[in-house]
């Protein structure tokens, strides 16, 4: 090895700076916008980015983002948290029970406290007793689902409008709008002009009828990023997820950090459940979470264990969910066209570029592209069941195509015991 000490900073710098020019993200987002505007005009599927669809997408993305953020806190400290779903269920009950009796703001608190309870169980099992993280998470999910259902029967039966599987209707949290913009933007949006209407739709979504909890959730995302990546506390917490033994030798109380991280994780998952109860609907229902804890976890993995990435993932899944909930088979259908064309271009590009080796992958892509395009050409709508599948298929595809570029915390899921560093 001829590498000298002075030569070392070069590769280090390369890994630390993303190596993308400043215009990369604006250009990508702008490009996507142009593509979507073009599809909208070409296919006539105007609901593709209407402010209604986008508002629904944001409303559905927030629980995923909060659950994903919960996963981020825990996994950054090295504890895999598949129990998010159970903690969310506890949160939905907490939000409904305390929200009904003491108002929506205390409802938020109730969701957080119930989530922390779930987090405490997971932390006790994984951090203190060293149980396998997945096993404990599965058990927490069982327990959360059981406790939620049992408590709902116990506390909501006999209340006006409530029942054994459903809470009474709850008071809603206030929304924020910037006055004077809504109608003007709506007018622009309804003109359906290429690109102008799309921009207006996005702006209208961001300035009109934003729920306070949405604002709080976005704030928590930004705050978590700052706390975990810009403070000594965050560095210590993340070090527990990367190299707990090393952190221990430097004097970090790994057990305490891990425990705390899982508690915060539970609080955020509980809040995600609270969002479902207090914002997305106005009551508790059995089975309300519908696997959103898992999707939140998938969004976090999609986002490469980073807050910005997980927000993007949550928005993507939220959007897919919004489209399916609005029953817009035509929107998903419209997406078949660009997906097919992109796959085709990718496959052909690979065929042309790769002169050696077997072109199996490229051929598979071309065949898949042709199938998707044929599907677009010969049908007018995607059946409802396939629209329902979209978020899950999207998750699988994204993971299949990007899993190798993802990097999880090095000691994520590893069982840590104090005093084993040497």
């Amino acid at each position: 090895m001829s590498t000298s000490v002075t030569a070392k900073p070069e590769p280090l710098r390369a890994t630390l700076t993303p190596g993308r020019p400043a215009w990369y993200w604006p250009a990508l987002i702008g490009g996507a916008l142009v593509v979507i505007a073009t599809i909208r005009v070409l296919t006539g599927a105007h609901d593709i980015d209407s402010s209604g669809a986008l508002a629904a997408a944001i409303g559905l993305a927030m629980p995923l983002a909060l659950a994903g953020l919960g996963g981020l806190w825990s996994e950054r400290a090295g504890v895999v948290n598949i129990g998010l779903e159970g903690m969310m269920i506890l949160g939905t009950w907490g939000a409904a029970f305390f929200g009904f009796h003491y108002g929506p703001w205390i409802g938020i608190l109730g969701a957080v406290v119930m989530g922390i309870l779930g987090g405490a169980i997971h932390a006790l099992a994984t951090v203190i007793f060293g149980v396998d993280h997945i096993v404990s998470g599965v058990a927490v999910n069982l327990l959360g689902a059981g406790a939620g259902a049992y408590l709902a029967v116990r506390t909501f039966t006999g209340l006006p409008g409530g029942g054994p599987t459903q809470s009474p209707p709850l008071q809603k949290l206030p929304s924020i709008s910037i006055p004077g913009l809504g109608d003007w933007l709506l007018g622009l949006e309804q003109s359906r002009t290429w690109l102008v209407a799309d921009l207006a739709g996005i702006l209208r979504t961001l300035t009109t009828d934003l729920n306070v909890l949405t604002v709080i959730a976005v704030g928590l995302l930004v705050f978590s990023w700052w706390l975990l990546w810009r403070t000594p506390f965050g560095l210590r917490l993340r070090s527990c997820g990367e190299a707990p033994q090393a952190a221990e030798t430097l004097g970090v109380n790994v057990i305490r950090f891990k425990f705390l991280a899982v508690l915060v994780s539970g609080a955020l998952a509980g809040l995600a459940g609270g969002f479902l109860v207090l914002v997305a609907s106005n009551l508790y229902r059995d089975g309300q979470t519908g696997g959103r804890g898992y999707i939140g976890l998938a969004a976090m993995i999609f986002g490469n264990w980073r807050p910005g990435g997980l927000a993007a993932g949550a928005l993507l899944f939220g959007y897919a969910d919004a489209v399916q909930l609005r029953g817009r088979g035509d929107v998903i259908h419209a997406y078949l066209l660009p997906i097919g064309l992109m796959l085709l271009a990718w496959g052909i590009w690979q065929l042309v570029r790769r002169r050696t080796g077997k072109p199996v992958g490229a051929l598979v892509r071309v065949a898949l592209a042709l199938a998707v395009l044929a599907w677009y050409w010969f049908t007018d709508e995607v059946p409802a069941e396939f629209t329902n599948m979209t978020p899950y298929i999207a998750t699988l595809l994204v993971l299949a195509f990007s899993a190798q570029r993802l990097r999880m915390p090095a000691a994520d899921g590893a069982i840590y015991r104090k005093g084993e560093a040497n």
Partner: protein
Amino acid sequence: MKVDFRKLGLAVAAPVLAILVALVLTSIILLVAGDPVLQVWQVLFKAPLPRQIVAILNEATVLYLSAVAVAIGFKMNLFNIGVDGQYRIASFAAAVFAGANLLPGWLNIIVSILIAMVTGALWAAIAGLLKVTRGVSEVISTIMLNYIATYLVAYLLKGAAVKVEGSNATSTAVIAESSRVPGISVESWLGTGREIYGLIFLAIAVGILFWFVLTKTRFGFDLRATGRSESAAIASGVNVKKMVVTSMILSGAIAGLVGMPLLFGQDFAYGDTVQAGLGFAGMSVALLGRNHPVGMAVAALLWGYLNQLSNGLQISAGVSDKLVLIIQGIIVLSVVIAYEVVRRAGLRMEQRRVARELAAQPKPATEEVAA
């Protein structure tokens, strides 16, 4: 033999401890919620009625198959959370084939069961292949595949459904009388008209096969070795990628069997009312039974017992039968904690014993270092 007894004692101590912990914690929850504690335990600890005994055995049959499917993965640290999706898509495929009544009698049953195994195996193989070729965690991919299976079956069911007169439920064509697995009548013993699933023998056979493959074959050894230490397995020539795909396929094939006792012994068709969530219950049973063929059977019976007796909670004690989910959740959580504690205690005892024996042996220092 002496060591074996101690091991057995430790293995039994953990679940017993867990059940006691569950009793105490559940009592506390009941007290806090203001439900009658004593009455709840009176209902749950009553001797089961004859018809309940049959129902417990039937439920245990299904849960046991699900648990074995999960345990194959668990044995090599592979988390097949997708048993739920695998058994539903497999049951659907088998129901469609069996409902067509193309083959006579038992042949129809056997081919349908094989179709279920292949379908379950293929669905599980997706997760296995994604893991070894693309590095996708099987935990996430199997969860996603569960949801995809749910909607895929709902879509296909619409196409395959047969209109049943006087009912809104959609279901596949009903299997002919000749292709149903006859139940075992226990009328003379227990005096109940309910019959035990004939396919309980399938579950027993699967259990024996599981034990045999795991402990008596090269494959089983490789499987366990990979689970204990992947690097050691690679060093001894195990192709871990192949093992992942193979065990996923086997797990999926057994998962495909989960719905068979229901299909051929009770429902005779696949409809939208089919029981969901058996995969997750199977996971609990596997954890409680510690992936051991006999342990899982005991755990499956316990689960069936709790499920059946909890049905009376609402009527007899005025408490929601959902309570059983809490009890089961606490049992699973405390049992995994108890196993971990017991394992460490056993390890410490072993270390002390070895240290004592080494200290007692009057041997030169050089040999001790080598040991």
